[in-house]
């Protein structure tokens, strides 16, 4: 049993809903009690969808449990098939139905419909949303393609002999994923510019008939490993289709991605020079204005794909220092751990947002890149934040075109990350000048209570200056010096100075001790 105050991911059947809702002509029969219908609002409110998810909930009640729930399930299946006329049917259970074991999938398969029926078994008590989405996509693709005759041998350079342009599938984009709709457009545009066509995009916007066409592509592009890696592996094993592993988020990753795709297709990769002119990020980051960004301490937490990508961009393309990297995704833990190791830090793998908040406070970052939850935590700590990953809120589904992937994605990322940092700097300046007459009426900070104003929590107060063996005492001179330090690094400086004072055996911290400590840690 796990105490959960808030969860990054929903249950696995919500993942299945994401696949069903992303597609066309698919219907999902979900054996579930009425309360589980809340999941519709994720799509209609967060994604602002103007259509209901294609889901029929059986909404069984306690009084049904004594009787024949199997008949109830069959009734719902029959009605839904007649009403929605899907060309493929997904059938599954939520947590409660899993316990009563009606086997709705087998029931549906026994009803004699002339349409593919995919039986979903998504263990609700051990798995979560992204796993559920991945498994559903995999089962659906497998279910639709398993009887299809396989080509004798798949050759990913066959396009050359066939005298056509190479074509690829884009796999993984789904509803309630982060900026998937725009990522697809961007990647489509970039590949098109290199003479590569798109065969099928799935699950987003695909019909079951499109899934049947998947093997017609030369290779698969695995855009979101959380959702599509297992499907890509299956297609590789069964149809011999190779797939790309690099996720094109950031300028460097986009370059590497293009190289990988070109190589898989037997094409000459574009030069790095060509790529560097495609996104403004490269130049913006070089421009003198960006000197300010140098070594900014950044804390990153999110799903695996976006967290890893963010770490690379932060380090290689913006010159930040990554002081924290983590994910809530157990499935991606291994990848995130190795990415963190390369950065010389330890990855944080947890589903508990309070642990993330504590790690964030400890790391004393100047910028947080995270989910909506980290945005709230960062706000409490008075640190600027940009959202880079699901779970998201309605404001993370912008009206404008704003991909994360490709050249334009890199532009969006530069703006989205640097803007809050600049705002943070502004807050600091306002804090510095708050005694000037322009500010005497009080300034409303966009960072919550702690932004802008001198952060009292980071200043030693009476109760924690009480003398004991351990804690050095801050003299008023030391305190005054500390107060001059920008709020977003003050906590770190204070802790470092105290650490130094203890090591050096100094009982009082004055302004000189602060400078000594600074020199010590610089050295």
């Amino acid at each position, binding site marked *: *049993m*796990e*105490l959960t*105050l808030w969860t990054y991911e929903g*249950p696995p059947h919500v993942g299945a809903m994401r696949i069903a809702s992303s597609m066309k002509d698919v219907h999902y029969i979900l054996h579930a*009690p009425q309360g589980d*219908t809340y999941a519709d*609002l994720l799509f209609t*409110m967060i994604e602002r969808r103007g259509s209901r998810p294609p889901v029929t909930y059986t909404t069984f009640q306690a009084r049904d449990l004594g009787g024949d729930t199997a008949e109830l399930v069959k009734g719902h299946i029959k009605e839904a098939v007649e009403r929605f006329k899907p060309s493929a049917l997904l059938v599954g259970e939520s*947590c409660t139905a899993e316990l009563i074991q009606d086997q709705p999938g087998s029931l549906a398969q026994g009803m004699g419909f002339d349409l593919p029926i995919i039986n979903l078994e998504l263990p609700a008590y051990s798995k979560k949303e992204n796993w559920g989405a991945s498994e559903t996509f995999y089962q659906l693709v497998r279910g639709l393609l398993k009887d299809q005759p396989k080509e004798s041998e798949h050759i990913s350079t066959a396009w050359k002999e066939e005298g056509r342009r190479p074509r690829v599938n884009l796999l993984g984009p789904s509803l309630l994923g982060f900026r998937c709709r725009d990522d697809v457009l961007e990647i489509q545009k970039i590949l098109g510019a290199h003479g590569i066509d798109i065969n099928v995009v799935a699950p987003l916007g695909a019909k079951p008939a499109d899934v049947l066409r998947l093997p017609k592509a030369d290779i698969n592009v695995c855009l979101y490993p959380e959702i599509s890696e297992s499907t890509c592996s299956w297609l590789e094993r069964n149809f011999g289709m190779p797939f790309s592993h690099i996720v094109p988020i950031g300028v460097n990753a986009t370059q590497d991605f293009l190289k990988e795709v070109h190589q898989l297709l037997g094409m000459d990769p574009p030069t790095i020079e060509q790529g560097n002119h495609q996104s403004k990020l490269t130049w913006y980051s070089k421009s003198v204005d960006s000197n300010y960004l140098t070594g900014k301490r950044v804390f990153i937490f999110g799903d695996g794909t976006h967290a890893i990508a963010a770490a690379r961009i932060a380090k290689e393309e913006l010159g930040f220092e990554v002081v924290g990297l983590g994910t809530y995704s157990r499935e991606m833990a291994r990848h995130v751990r190795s990415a963190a190791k390369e950065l010389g830090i330890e990855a944080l793998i947890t589903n508990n947002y309070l642990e993330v908040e504590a790690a964030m406070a400890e790391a004393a970052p100047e910028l947080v890149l995270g989910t909506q939850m980290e945005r709230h935590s960062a706000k409490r700590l008075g640190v600027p934040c940009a959202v880079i990953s699901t779970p998201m809120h309605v404001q993370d589904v912008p009206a404008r075109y704003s991909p994360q992937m490709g050249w334009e994605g890199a532009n969006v990322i530069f703006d989205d990350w640097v803007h809050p940092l600049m705002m943070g700097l502004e807050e600091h300046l306002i804090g510095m000048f708050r005694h000037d007459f322009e500010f005497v009426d009080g300034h409303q900070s966009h960072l919550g209570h702690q932004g802008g104003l001198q952060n009292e929590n980071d200043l030693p107060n009476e109760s924690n200056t009480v003398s004991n063996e351990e804690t050095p005492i801050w003299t008023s001179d030391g305190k005054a010096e500390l107060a001059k330090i920008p709020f977003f690094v003050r906590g770190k400086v204070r802790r470092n100075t105290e650490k130094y004072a203890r090591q050096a055996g100094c009982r009082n911290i004055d302004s000189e001790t602060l400078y000594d400590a600074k020199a010590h840690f610089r050295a």
Partner: protein
Amino acid sequence: MGGATLLKESGPREVFCGLTSIVWLHRRMPDAFFLVVGSRTCAHLIQSAAGVMIFAEPRFGTAILEERDLAGLADAHDELDRVVKDLLARRPEIRTLFLVGSCPSEVIKLDLARVAERLNGSLTGGVRVVNYSGSGIETTFTQGEDGALKALVPLMPESNEEQLLLVGTLANSVEDRFITLFNRLGIKNVASFPPRQSTDIPPIGPRTKVLLAQPYLGDTARALKDKGAEILKAPFPLGVEGSKGWMEAAAKSFGVQDSLFTSTVEPLIIRARKALEPFREKLSGKLLFLLPESQLEIPLARFLHQECGMKLIEVGTPYLNREMMNEELELLPEGTRIVEGQHVEKQLDRIRQEQPDLVVCGMGLANPLEAEGISTKWSIELVFSPIHGIDQAADLAELFSRPLHRRNLLNPKVLSQV
């Protein structure tokens, strides 16, 4: 009864479960914690219904059952004890712990009453543990509050003093206003249930007179009656007329002189009717369709028809408690179609066919209906907003006229047609 036509329907439903009530109950009683014993779905439902996630330390959470809890109930009990003790150690400010049952905990027959009893015996530090069910196989949406309140009834001390007890969560401002008004009528001893602090449980006895502020508290009402209290018969305090009838029921029962009641309430009524007038103009003659969700549907329909002139096409309700709704049903026009239960697809078919001007519905259905060109009002907003009482009647009407007003602003063509 005013001749409403009562129909029943069954099929796929689109209604929240009783866990949803935690969203307002935890705000009402800040010293209480609501621990759902359930699945990740339950945790996800509450956080999705609550919408924002800004809590550093929320006062609700879920003990998520895992594979091994399902394997052995004995272990599940031990695990729950451990979770509760960890929680209370971290959150010493908690005075009342609600263990909230869910579909999974009920299906595996985890007996939370026994757990609560055991914990009450073993916990020190003045924390009280109570339990109720918010499961979707037993309860809908607002029924969760009924369960929570019923669970507190055994804790009410006995008292023979005469008092008026307002039952059902109200916005604090609205509650204060009611107390002021009852005081003006000479009813001095007014208590509220649930209280603002979970430890501040009001007493009860044969001289307690209960006014139900919310229409979904059938089980609580019965439990209070069993404790000797008298449940006053009244419509619910929505709109001018409902609120007047509600206050009047108390006034009569406490022997308040008619003249005092009139001189106290009449000026408010005149003012409120005036404030209602512009909204009545906007709403009058408009077709209204209410989907079942909050259980407020029948009183709202009564208000929107009687005081705002809307035409009722259909009034859905998740379940119909005739005893609770008697006064309300009387006030509905002849032939009002009341549908208990739901077949969401058929109901949507009827909406498409009858093209109402406004549909009251849950959040899952609102945008899809808007996309079809049908204006909507979310019912969940009604359980969060201060809408009760004579003084709030215009605010309540405004909630319903805003979507229509907005539609007119954005569609000048529609404006010329209506």
